[in-house]
């Protein structure tokens, strides 16, 4: 088990670096863009940059959501690179077997998620402190929102990993692609013929308002219960996904092209 985990860390070390650096990049980038954009226009560009970050916190959130999307997609690669028949048969012959191999993979994904969250937490803490110390600006905290989103990503990846194990990485990705296509088509049909609100702009602003409430923690009680239940549900789904993957891994191997 330790060996498998070491192999994962060695093999996918770029993922660990990404988990640490992507949030740092996404947290500091809006500030740096404003800072360099502000030179020459203002007498105190860094102050202007912080003020701008505070005033347009939507941009700040968008960057963070972008970092979540990036890490969510990168997590999928943990399964893709080992998807060869020879490797899978070799894994099946090891004393620890498929269980330990998959266990290390699932554990590694959790380590990546933890590294990502820690990076968000400390970078955000530094940004908030600098913002207040230097300019008296109170930036909003978003690490709680990120934590919530990490569990949502874990829930989605639980489904992805089980599908990848059962149908092979390529077929699994295809199955997921078809599902997304169906959702997309249904969405388009609804947008074309469905009962759309009369005022589309206000509907869109409602969506933004909902996301803002989610970030600020001012959501409704029902949403609060769902958020509270997210960690146990996501972890349970992740565990079930691991069990299913162990069971169907060798069947999935038959779908590998190489």
């Amino acid at each position, binding site marked *: 088990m330790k060996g498998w985990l070491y192999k994962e860390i060695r093999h996918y070390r770029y993922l660990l670096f990404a988990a640490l650096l992507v949030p740092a990049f996404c947290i500091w980038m809006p500030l740096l863009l404003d800072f360099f954009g502000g030179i020459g226009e203002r007498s105190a560009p860094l102050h202007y940059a912080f003020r701008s970050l505070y005033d347009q916190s939507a941009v700040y959130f968008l960057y963070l959501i972008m970092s979540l999307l990036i890490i969510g997609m990168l997590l999928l690669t943990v399964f893709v690179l080992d998807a060869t028949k020879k490797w899978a048969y070799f894994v099946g012959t090891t004393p620890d077997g498929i269980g330990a191999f998959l266990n290390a993979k699932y554990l590694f994904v959790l380590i990546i998620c933890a590294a990502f969250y820690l990076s968000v937490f400390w970078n955000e803490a530094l940004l908030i*402190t*600098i913002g207040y110390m230097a300019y008296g600006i*109170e930036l909003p905290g978003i690490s709680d929102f990120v934590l919530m989103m990490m569990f949502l990503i874990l829930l989605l990846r639980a489904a992805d990993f089980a599908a990848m194990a059962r149908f092979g990485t390529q077929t699994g990705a295809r199955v997921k692609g078809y599902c997304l296509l169906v959702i997309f088509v249904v969405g388009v049909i609804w947008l074309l013929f469905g009962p759309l609100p009369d005022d589309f702009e206000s509907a869109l602003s409602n969506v933004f308002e909902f996301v803002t409430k989610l970030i600020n923690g001012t959501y409704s*009680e029902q949403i*609060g*219960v769902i958020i*509270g*239940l*997210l960690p146990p549900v996501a972890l349970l789904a992740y565990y079930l996904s691991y069990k299913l993957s162990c069971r169907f891994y060798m069947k999935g191997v038959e779908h590998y092209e190489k």
Partner: protein
Amino acid sequence: MKSKAQHAKRLVIYLLFAFGFAWIPWILMNRFWGYEEWFCTSHYIFFANLTLYAPALANILTRLVTKEGFHDMKLRLRLKGHIPHYLTAWLLPISCALLGGLLVTAIYGRNNGNADGISGMGATAAVLQAVFYAPLRAFLTLGEEFGWRGYMNDKMKPLFGTAGTVLIGGTIWGIWHAPLTVEGHNFGRDYAGYPYTGFLMMMLYCICLGTVLMWLTDHTGSVFPAAVFHAIVNFGAPTVFRLIARGVPQTAESSVLKEFIVPELPIVLFSILFLILLLFRRKPVQKPI
């Protein structure tokens, strides 16, 4: 076998580091920014969180200075065979908060009205979030546990025995919080004998918590269950307590008794139980080679 003098020397060095790295920034921050500003708001959150790692830094530096090496760091999760210990770390503080809330309500009575306007759904959401998100904050309490339970206790046990470690270790841990206690941390400032009774209360509280934390660390050989317990005590249990005891009428009666002593009675009782378990723990029998 290490001599007692060697343990004592390492302990003193560790304590100098642990107190120095925490007290100097705390006193400076209290002086220049004010406790309410740096501890109770998120304005200086980076520094506030960083100082929590002072015992961890002291652990590492003491090992370096004394050339002790980095063996037996207790930094492995040790989940195998220790799930009940992790569950204890997770559920015990919540249970104690629940019992404490019920106790306060039973003693001081309850308003019929829903004064704070929290509905059942709102309370459920708050409890769920406290129960499931608080353990994830263990990375913030890991620094303290890595220092106090991971290093200090190990150095104290050969010198003072188990009971002595519980008492002296808890007292030292309580004194370590003094720059915060003097500014109103946990008990406020409006109580008889301020701040000395506050120091005393903090020491007693730390002795009680320290007993459970020591039991968890000794049984698992890891500081992680202790960090989880500590995280729930700090970030989860207060929410549960406030929800249970929210109907208790706000009167002018001594707030420390109502808001601290009575609610903490369950943890005091549990700490006595854990002390007995620690004292009568059977030493693992070494198999002959």
